[in-house]
């Protein structure tokens, strides 16, 4: 498992290759790349703040939970912090499994929990100054659907 919080960007090829490591049991790598959106055309920059220490713990716990639910061979989570320009990569989650069903589910699970449980905060810079991004209800809804049914 690789969990990294860093200011610099990352290389998708290198990360997927490091995750796969020519392991012949791996048949499926699902990955998610999140990038800075600027739909309004108003965002000149974004800054990511986080809670050092808790971030890494929270991400590790999320990946470990995914590993108990699906047959995950290995997983990588990289989240950037600091200033970012529109279109720049923010986050990479990549999961290697034998089969695609496990890889897709684990990757989406990790992203959904990262969005609501990992202590990162986005602040957008526009001509009007800085504005903290509001949490979206849809992210909490996405997280809730992974709840296991009661027995």
């Amino acid at each position, binding site marked *: 498992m690789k969990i990294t919080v860093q200011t610099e960007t990352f290389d998708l090829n290198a990360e997927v290759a490091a995750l796969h490591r020519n392991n012949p049991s791996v048949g499926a790598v699902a990955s998610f790349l999140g990038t800075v959106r600027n739909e309004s055309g108003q965002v000149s920059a974004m800054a990511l703040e986080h*809670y050092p220490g808790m971030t890494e713990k929270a991400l590790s716990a999320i990946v470990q939970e995914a590993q108990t639910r699906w047959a995950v061979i290995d997983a990588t989570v990289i989240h950037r912090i600091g200033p970012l320009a529109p279109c720049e990569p923010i*986050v990479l989650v990549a999961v290697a499994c034998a089969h695609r069903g496990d890889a897709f589910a684990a990757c989406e699970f990790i992203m959904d929990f990262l969005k609501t449980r990992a202590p*990162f*905060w986005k602040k957008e810079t526009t001509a009007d100054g800085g504005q903290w991004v509001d949490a979206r209800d849809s992210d909490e809804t996405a997280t809730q659907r992974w709840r296991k049914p009661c027995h």
Partner: protein
Amino acid sequence: MNLKLLYFARLRETLGISREVFTLDAPATVADLLDHLRARCGVWTTELAVERNFRVAVNQEMANASTALNDGDEVALFPPVTGG
């Protein structure tokens, strides 16, 4: 007991503080700590009002109002997260 309080993101900016050491009589819960902070009045009362949407972590794990606090605990207050 002494608590290490941390504030992040919008809360850090609005409250105008990023960290402090806070002394509180034991035993106490997160709810007790919040009552003491609200008693500072002004933005403290409005930002930490029960109906406001904020989160509390104790020793880097998500906590709730009934979480018990111990001497030396690191307590962080922050808005709902928005990474990813």
